[in-house]
C-alpha cells in the first residue's frame, strides 16, 4: 500500500514536472480574424472599448495553503479583493493606452462610458455582447471591443510555482459580426523549470516566483501583447505597412515679417511628402494638430510627392516665445504608421500674456 502510494506520488510528481516543463516563461496566443477584418481596418476602423468582465476563477488553493507567507503573496494595492474588482478596469485602460500607440482609431473610454451612461446603460449592459450593434450605433463607431479576464491566478507546487494571466478579447462589427478574437495567456514559472538550480534554494525560488509583482507584470504584459495581436495584421502585413508608411521630406514656415509674430499675423507652413495623406503641424504644445491641405501633387519623378500647406492666424499678442515647429503625416484612413518631422528652428510666437 505504501509502495503503491509512493509510486503514485512519483508518477504524479513526474507528470507535474512534465506539465510544468513548458511553463517556465510562456506566452501563448490564439487569434482568429474574419476575412473582412483586414480590409475594414485598412479603411479606417473606429473602435470603442467597453468595460471588461472578469471571469477568472477564484484563487482558493493558494490563499488557503500559503497563508503563512502572506507577506510574499500580498498584493500591492489593498489586498486581492480590491485588486480583483479593479482588474477589469486596469486591463482595459492598459490595453487602450497601448492601442492608442498603434493603428486603430480608438474612442476614449471616458467618452464611450459617458455617452452610454447618459443613454441609461448600466455597466452590465455595456458588457453585454449581444448589444454590440446598439452600442456601436449610439457611439457612432464601426466596431466594439469586448474583453474578459479569464485567468489571473497563481499556483504553487513546492518546487515550482506559476503565475498566469489570460485575457480574451472580441471585436464585433456594428452589424454584430465577430471580426476578431484573441485569447492571450502570459505565464511565469519559477523553480525547477527555470533550469538547474544554483545557489538560490530550490524551495525559495518558487515562493519568490509568487510575488505579486509577477502577477502585476504579467497583467501589463497581456495588455501589451493583446495590443500587438490586434494591431498587427499578420506576417507580411507589418512589412507592407512599413513600406507604405507616408513620408515627409520638407517642412518650412513662412513668416510675414522679421521678429516676433503679432496679433493678426498669418503663419504659413509648407510641407512636402507622400500624397493623399493627413498632415498637421504643431507649434510646441501650444497649438497641436493644425490641419494642412494638399495643394499640389508632383508625379513626374520616381515617386509622387505632394505639397501641403497650412496656416494659423495669431490670435493675440503678448510676450514672445520661441516654439518648435513640427509636422506629422498619417494615412488618411488613420491606419498605418505616421512620421513626424521637426523643423530646425523656432517660431517666434507671441502668446497671450498670462
Amino acid at each position, binding site marked *: 500500500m505504501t509502495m503503491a502510494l509512493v509510486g503514485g506520488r512519483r508518477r504524479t510528481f513526474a507528470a507535474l514536472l512534465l506539465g510544468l516543463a513548458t511553463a*517556465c*516563461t510562456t506566452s501563448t496566443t490564439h487569434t482568429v480574424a474574419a476575412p473582412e477584418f483586414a480590409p475594414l481596418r485598412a479603411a479606417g476602423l473606429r473602435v470603442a472599448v467597453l468595460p471588461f468582465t472578469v471571469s477568472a476563477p477564484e484563487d482558493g488553493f493558494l490563499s488557503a495553503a500559503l497563508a503563512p507567507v502572506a507577506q510574499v503573496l500580498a498584493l*500591492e*494595492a*489593498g489586498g486581492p479583493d480590491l485588486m480583483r474588482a*479593479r482588474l477589469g*478596469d*486596469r486591463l482595459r*485602460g*492598459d490595453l487602450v*493606452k497601448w492601442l492608442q*500607440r498603434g493603428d486603430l482609431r480608438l474612442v*476614449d473610454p*471616458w*467618452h464611450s462610458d*459617458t455617452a452610454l*451612461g*447618459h443613454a441609461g446603460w448600466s455597466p452590465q449592459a455595456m458588457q453585454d455582447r449581444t448589444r454590440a450593434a446598439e452600442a456601436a450605433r449610439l457611439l457612432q463607431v464601426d466596431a466594439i471591443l469586448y474583453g474578459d479576464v479569464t485567468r489571473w491566478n497563481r499556483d504553487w507546487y513546492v518546487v515550482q510555482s506559476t503565475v498566469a494571466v489570460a485575457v480574451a478579447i472580441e471585436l464585433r462589427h456594428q452589424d454584430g459580426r465577430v471580426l476578431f478574437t484573441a485569447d492571450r495567456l502570459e505565464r511565469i514559472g*519559477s523553480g525547477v*523549470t*527555470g*533550469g*538547474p*538550480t*544554483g*545557489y*538560490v534554494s530550490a524551495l525559495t*525560488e518558487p515562493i519568490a516566483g509568487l510575488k505579486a*509583482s509577477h502577477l*502585476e*507584470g504579467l497583467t*501589463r*504584459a497581456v495588455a*501589451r501583447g493583446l495590443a500587438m495581436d490586434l494591431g498587427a495584421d499578420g506576417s507580411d502585413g507589418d512589412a507592407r505597412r512599413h513600406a507604405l508608411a507616408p513620408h515627409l521630406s520638407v517642412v518650412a514656415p513662412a513668416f510675414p515679417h522679421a521678429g516676433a509674430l503679432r496679433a493678426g499675423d498669418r503663419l504659413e507652413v509648407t510641407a512636402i511628402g507622400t500624397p493623399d495623406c493627413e498632415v498637421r503641424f504643431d507649434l*510646441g*504644445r*501650444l*497649438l*497641436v*494638430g*493644425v*490641419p494642412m*491641405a494638399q495643394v499640389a501633387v508632383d508625379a513626374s519623378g520616381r515617386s509622387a510627392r505632394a505639397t501641403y500647406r497650412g*496656416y494659423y*492666424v495669431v*490670435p*493675440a499678442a503678448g*510676450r514672445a*516665445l*520661441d*516654439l*518648435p515647429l513640427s509636422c506629422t503625416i498619417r494615412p488618411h484612413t488613420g491606419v498605418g504608421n505616421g512620421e513626424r518631422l521637426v523643423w530646425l528652428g*523656432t517660431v517666434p510666437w507671441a*502668446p*497671450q500674456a*498670462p
Partner: protein
Amino acid sequence: MSARRTVGPLPLAALFAAAACNSLSHQVAGPAPARVALLPFAGTLAPADRDLARELLAFRLRERGYLVQDTAATDRLLSESGWLTDAATFAPAAVPTATACTRLQVDACIVGTSFDRLQSNLVLWRRHALDASLALQRADGSPFWRANGRRTAHGGLVLQSGQLLRELQQQLDHGSPMQTLALLDDLIDAIAATVPSRSAAAAADATAATPPLLATAVPMPPHTTVSVDAPPTATVWLDLPGERAVPMASVGGGFAVTRDTPGAGPASVHARLPFAGAAAALATAPVVRR
C-alpha cells in the same frame, strides 16, 4: 595572487548588481489634493517615452481617485504662460509651482525630474534600468508626496541563480524598446501605488456638468473668426466644412480662431473639460453665423 585578481571582480559585480536592484522610496505629508496637473517630465529618457510615462501616471492617478488635468490642457496653459516651449528640453524646476497651480486651476502639480535610462550588458552580467523622481507639490509650495524609484531588468549568466533557461531567453529581450516600455510601465505602476488613494466620492465632488457652449462666427472677409465661450482650462477645437479639428487658442476669457472663410456647410465646436474621466466631459455646439 593572480587567482584573487581573476575572481575578485565577480563578487564585486554581484554586490553592485544587488545594490542596483529595484528600489522605491516615498514620503507623504498632509491631506491629499483633489485636482492635480502633471507637468511634462524631464530627463534623458526619449521624449516619447517620457510622454508615455506621463500618460500612464495620469491614468493610474485617476484610478486612485484624483482629478487629473488633461495633459493637453496642461501643456497649452504652460505654453501660454511661457513656461513650456520645447517639451524635449522642459525644465520643471524653472516653473514657479504656486503661480503654475493658479494658472492651471489645480491644487497641486506633479513634477517629474530625472527620468533616466541606464543600460549595460556584459553577458555574464547585464542591467537595464530606469530611474525616476517625482513630487506632488501643493500650490503653497509644500510637498504632499515625493517618490524616487528605479526599475531594473538585471541578470546575466552569473547572477541568475541557476535559472539558465530563463536567462538565455531574457538575453534576447535585453535593452529592446519593448523591455524599456515594460520597465517604464512597471516603474510608473510602482510609483503610483505609493500615492495615497482618495475616495471615489471625493473625486466625484468636482465632476461638474459641462457648461453649455456658445460659439459665434464673425465674417471679416476674406477671413472668419469663430469665438467660443468655454472655461479657460478646456481643450477646444473647431470643425469646418473641409477642415476637421482645428485647435482653438485661448483669447481673453474664451477661445478663438481665425480661418479663411469656409464654404457652405455645418460648422461646430467641441470642448473637452480638463479633468477627463469626469461625467459629461465633452460638449459640442453648432457655430452660429452672424
